[in-house]
């Protein structure tokens, strides 16, 4: 019993030191996150009648194509190697998992005046929606998530750009 008490005491000490070090590291890390942000409340809708409404709207291929043709900003939420292999023309790379690298690079290129189309690999990936939520929290409100992603775009025979931007 005494040994178990000691184990619990030691475990609490390890957990406390881990939490302290973890939070300090997170606050200085370029990929650090605010653990108390309210991403859960970001409105996401698939209602196509809400064109122009603020929030995050999930769109299909046709609407993605129209939005891009009419000058919307396009964000590719995939990894750099996937982006280099092929992406939607004019897309800007913003790897969702490397916020620290891309945040400062990409955010100045975006504007609330224009729609922002975000996509990832395919319909089953949710990085585009997660990134759209991040962008919403950063103040961007005209966000369109192209759920079919690059697979649907290239599968439809639409133009593809290769290499780095």
């Amino acid at each position, binding site marked *: 019993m005494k040994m178990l008490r000691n184990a619990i005491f030691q475990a609490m000490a390890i957990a406390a*030191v*881990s939490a302290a070090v973890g939070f300090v590291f997170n606050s200085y890390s370029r990929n650090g996150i605010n653990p108390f942000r309210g991403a859960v409340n970001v409105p996401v809708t698939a209602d196509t009648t809400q064109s122009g409404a603020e929030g995050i709207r999930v769109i299909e291929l046709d609407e993605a194509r129209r939005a891009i043709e009419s000058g919307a900003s396009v964000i590719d939420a995939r990894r750099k190697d996937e982006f280099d292999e092929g992406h939607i023309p004019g897309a800007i790379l913003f790897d969702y998992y490397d*916020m620290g690298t891309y945040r400062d690079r990409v955010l100045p290129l975006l504007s609330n005046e224009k729609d922002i189309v975000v996509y990832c690999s395919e319909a089953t990936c949710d990085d585009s929606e997660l990134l759209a939520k991040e962008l919403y929290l950063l103040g961007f409100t005209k966000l369109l998530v192209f759920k079919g992603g690059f697979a649907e775009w290239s599968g439809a025979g639409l133009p593809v750009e290769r290499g780095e931007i």
Partner: protein
Amino acid sequence: MKMTWSQGARMPAGDRSGTHWIFNPYLLLAFRLLLAAIFIYAAVQKIGKPLAFADEIRNYGVVDYGPPLYIMAIVLPWIELLCGISLVTGVGVRGAALILVGLNAMFLAVIAKKTIGYMGDGTPFMKIYFDCGCGFGETYAWKKLLEDAVYLLVSLALLAAPRHRFAVSIRRRSS
């Protein structure tokens, strides 16, 4: 009369290591180094990537969005790292073992839950292949379940061991 820990027996101090082969001091040291290597490696893969790790946790469908998810993503890799360091250095071995018992039991439960979900979709058990988010990439579910069960047993052995060699004893000061 042979007595075991579970019976709450008080064995003579300094003579407990011979009670069972699993408490052989060199075997216990090997267990510590094995668990330390695994958990330090896993931690290093996740430290500094809280969003990616939060996404992995979210995929298990146990903790969704919000502070609990992000706090877990920030703190859990550091707990794994410090447990690994404790096991290597011998400082707070029993505490680290207690945490690893809890962590491995939790990992087993969530991976079992996910595996059952895949089986519900008609995938045969032996063919379920996924990224467990553990820092080791994609693997077969049965292999991961087996690994975690072994880690759980090894952690339990470290927790229950009467004595650890090459370790620093830290005790709470009793008033």
